């Protein structure tokens, strides 16, 4: 059983990462990664929705007939997103002012429906929730990384305005990487998102290839000895 959770963790964070492997959820990936803080915020909000949606879909999986499962899942996801939206607006209003625009976008993130369809409807509540958490963290990692690279090259800062998202305790994250930097507009504008994603995808391919070669080498020691 613990093996299953290791698999889920590896899948979510790296092997089957929503952005870097499944290439899903491109709308938020491109739209909000102008800065690391925005990427982080969007990732965390999506994680919350993913965990809840996966758990709920798993809970009702035996009641839902296969023919109408998609509308049922969509309604569940849309409701969860709306609940997150109104509760943030009411009880974490400063955070809502930063993230408000993006939260409604989560409904359109096909990764959420994708996980319900591909994983949560087939397994129990605990592994489904775990999958939501790990996929969400993998998504957060990807968005923060893309946002960080774009922000660093585009504006010369990193985690600017992090205190708005995480509270003043995290103000130390806000760094100016390149002082007196004039900025490189292209990276902040939409093309920057595509460029960074392209290079990151290529980079992941290279890393995965190296890893596979090393594994193959370790599996056949005699071949290595030749």
């Amino acid at each position: 059983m613990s093996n299953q959770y290791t698999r889920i963790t590896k899948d979510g964070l790296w092997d089957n990462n929503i952005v870097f492997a499944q290439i899903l959820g491109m709308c938020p990936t491109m739209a909000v990664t102008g800065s690391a803080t925005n990427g982080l915020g969007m990732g965390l909000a999506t994680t919350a929705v993913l965990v809840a949606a996966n758990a709920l879909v798993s809970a009702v999986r035996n009641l839902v007939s296969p023919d109408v499962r998609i509308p049922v899942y969509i309604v569940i996801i849309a409701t969860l997103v709306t609940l997150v939206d109104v509760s943030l607006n009411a009880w974490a209003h400063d955070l809502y002012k930063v993230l408000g625009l993006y939260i409604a976008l989560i409904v359109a993130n096909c990764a959420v429906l994708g996980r319900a369809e591909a994983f949560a409807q087939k397994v129990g509540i605990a592994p489904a929730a775990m999958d939501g958490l790990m996929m969400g963290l993998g998504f957060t990692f990807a968005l923060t990384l893309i946002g960080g690279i774009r922000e660093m090259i585009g504006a010369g800062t990193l985690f600017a305005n992090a205190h708005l998202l995480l509270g003043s305790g995290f103000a130390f994250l806000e760094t100016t990487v390149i002082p007196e930097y004039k900025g490189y507009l292209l990276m902040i504008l939409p093309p920057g998102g595509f460029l960074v994603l392209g290079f990151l995808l290529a980079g992941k391919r290279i890393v995965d290839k190296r890893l596979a070669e090393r594994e193959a080498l370790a599996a056949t020691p005699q071949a290595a000895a030749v």
Partner: protein
Amino acid sequence: MGLDQLRGKLAYQGLLLGGVALLTGAALVLADRATLADIKRAQAADMKQSLAQVLPGQYDNDLLQDTVTLPGPEGEVTVYRARRAGRVEAVVFQVQGHGYAGPVVSMMGVDRDGHVLGVRVIQHKETPGLGDKVEPAKADWIHSFEHRFLGDPPADKWAVKKDGGVFDQFTGATITPRAVVNSVKGGLVFFQKERARLLDDGSGAAAALPKPSLSGNTATKME
């Protein structure tokens, strides 16, 4: 009949969808009920904060309750009135210009003599690094309106320098500052036209507006 057989029936699917819609709908109604008051409060606080930015000084009424809606240059304009001892001392309203990437919405405060107290762009989609210098966090430009009125500069000079006016444009971005300058000018013209109704001081349309030529006298009231 087992659940497996039941799930195949057409009626089951309709009932299932209906049931899910009912449950989620109920959850949304409850959430709406639970959050409505808090959201209203937070939005009112936001509004107060943005009003305070373009309205320096102390006023003794609740601006959010003291509004008047008039036809303006871009449709209906809601005007918030700030009073001291019952007299309208200043008004705040929204103006809108056409920027490079869509509308540029600003909030502006005007005192009873038609002087600009402050301007803040509250909504825009301009290019980061170029057009967004209208934000006070990025540049001081937005403060260049303060204490000005129609007459300083005169109406035909209320424009960016490229258009023969007195306000700076930004390197690589003229459209955004032009949108803000023109919308503020439009706001002042609107104020001038509707002054009597806006100030609500009983003197009606007879309320004399300081002519541009007399502006030197009113300028002494500036702080």
